[in-house]
């Protein structure tokens, strides 16, 4: 049995701890001991032991000494007290090579056996569900029952995805890998865990920012982010909604997206400034700073460098964001839109947009007055992700505008003075 097998090394080493090499185990101990190299198993086996007279004084590890003599020696030579109980130290000395899942703790091993049993059941259920789905797909139904069949298939697939996650969610190894950031995003369990983590805090923050800064009604009427984003300007991370110096944002950023749904899909990314002043209108309008289509993204293919996209993907290249002098901050929202699937089936590829056609038509190839909602509606795009940063006038903005060839770097906006209404003295009979 697994427990007995895994318990044996502990027992063995408890019997002969005196012969075991003192080994560095924990991080705190290695820092003290790393000056002296530890002989590896094979090395010590190959070389005959040196004569007892020239054995250098072995440095003891306070985490692994477990005999009274060794403890005394530790205190005498190194002036360190051993750490923890003798039982614990003996266990540490003997169990360093045992993998985590085989650690000889009875309750732990029984719990693992129970969870493994449960996992087997879940895997069986997954198989069963797959068979059922195949059977239902193969079944011919009357045309009036098509919708019902589709609905059933949909719910069965949801159940299947749920079961796949449930099979692995109780595995400590999976949990450890995910916490270490080594999760394989092609597997549903890691995608599920990452999504849960994102939704637990970062998505909340993002939603708060886009609501507080009124991105939601101003740029798009509704937006439910399901793709998480991280924005970096030349390696510098930008929090959602942060004010970015115009010099930093003069270079195109890199967007690190994380889709949590399986499969590669095509996305459109647009950067819209929703606070461009319009003096004639005495109001604000929109400007598109960047627009690119047909960007393939998947849970593992996440990086979108705005400057290294292909020419047939980019409709509008990066225009450095700027806010002229005297203006309040301007919100630059980065919207990720999913392109519609070719057909309404599972794993259907996305429709590529006709970039040349859009450029020729000119309606959405113009930066001025780019209406996000109209664009999304025109090409049936579904907003799935958002990121946000702000830009204000600073000491670099004039330079940035001049270099980008944008007119108006020497313009300063002033608030219109509101003339007070003339005071009119009313008839004296009113003041009594």
């Amino acid at each position, binding site marked *: 049995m697994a427990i007995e097998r895994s318990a044996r090394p502990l027992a063995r080493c408890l019997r002969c701890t005196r012969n075991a090499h003192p080994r560095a185990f924990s991080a705190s101990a290695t820092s003290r001991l790393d000056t002296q190299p530890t002989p590896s198993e094979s090395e010590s086996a190959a070389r005959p032991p040196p004569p007892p007279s020239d054995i250098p004084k072995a440095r003891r590890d306070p985490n692994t000494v477990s005999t009274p003599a060794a403890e005394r020696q530790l205190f005498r030579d190194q002036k360190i007290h051993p750490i923890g109980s003798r039982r614990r130290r003996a266990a540490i000395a003997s169990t360093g090579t045992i993998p985590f899942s085989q650690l000889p703790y009875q309750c*732990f091993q029984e719990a693992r056996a129970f969870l493994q049993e*449960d996992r087997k059941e879940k895997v069986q259920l997954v198989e069963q569900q797959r068979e059922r789905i195949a059977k239902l797909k193969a079944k011919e139904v009357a045309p009036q029952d098509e919708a019902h069949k589709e609905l059933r298939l949909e719910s069965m697939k949801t159940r299947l995805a749920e079961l796949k996650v449930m099979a692995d969610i*109780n595995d*400590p190894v999976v949990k450890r890998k995910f916490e270490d950031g080594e999760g394989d995003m092609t597997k549903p369990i890691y995608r599920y865990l990452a999504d849960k983590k994102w939704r637990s805090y970062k998505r909340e923050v993002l939603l708060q920012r886009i609501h507080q800064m009124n991105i939601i009604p101003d740029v798009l009427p509704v937006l439910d982010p399901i793709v998480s984003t991280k924005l970096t300007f030349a390696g510098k991370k930008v929090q959602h909604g942060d004010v970015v110096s115009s010099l930093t944002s003069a270079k195109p950023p890199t967007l690190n997206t994380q889709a949590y749904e399986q499969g590669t899909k095509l996305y459109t990314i647009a950067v819209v400034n929703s606070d461009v002043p319009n003096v004639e209108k005495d109001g604000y309008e929109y400007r598109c700073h960047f627009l690119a289509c047909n960007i393939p993204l998947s849970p593992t293919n996440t990086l979108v460098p705005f400057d290294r996209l292909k020419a047939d993907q980019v409709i509008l290249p990066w225009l450095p964001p700027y806010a002229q002098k005297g203006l309040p901050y301007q919100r630059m929202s980065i919207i990720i839109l999913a392109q519609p699937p070719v057909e309404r089936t599972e794993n259907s590829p996305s429709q590529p947009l006709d970039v040349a056609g859009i450029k020729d038509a000119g309606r959405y190839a113009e930066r001025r007055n780019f209406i996000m909602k109209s664009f999304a509606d025109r090409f049936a795009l579904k907003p799935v992700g958002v990121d946000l940063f702000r830009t204000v006038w600073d000491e670099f903005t004039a330079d940035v505008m001049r270099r980008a060839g944008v007119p108006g770097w020497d313009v300063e906006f002033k608030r219109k003075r509101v003339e007070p209404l003339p005071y009119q003295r009313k008839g004296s009979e009113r003041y009594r």
Partner: protein
Amino acid sequence: MKTPSTALLRTLSPLCRSSALPWTARGCQAAQQQPSAPFSSTTRQRARERGGEKRDMRITLIRYHLQHPLTPRPLRFSRDRALRHWTIHRAHRLHQTRLQADRQATLERQYNSMAAACEALRLVDEHGLTETERTRLGCEREGHGKRGRLYRIAMRKDGVWEGVPIEYSRIQTDSPGREGWNHGWTR
């Protein structure tokens, strides 16, 4: 309530804890301590002989309740230990969930079989025959009133509140009943 264990308390030395004592407990402590003669070694001697002085149980209990924290100390585990703890916890939760599901399934089964039994009683007549059985056996049909006598008897609620206080005779609910008080009620 179970009397809490004083094992923890007995290990606590009165010297190191006295500063944390609230003022209400200081009198107790003073009464408990022997008037100390600085050059006498009797107390210490006695402690050596008999393993500590005897304390009043009441003082021990008061101290326990004044000083013992209500919240247990937080679990501080190493990575592996925490993961092991988590694994065991998950297995325990899974086991509990299964037990609960089993219990729920048993209840459902019992309820359903009881409902089926009642339905069977409702369809049965004086001779234990249903309508379909009668037609099959060729017996003459009986009137509707003859059927379901056993069902009616089973549904009677006579005496179910016997021995139960009158306050419980209506199922306790959050809001008052539709008719507030039945003034015409007599026993």
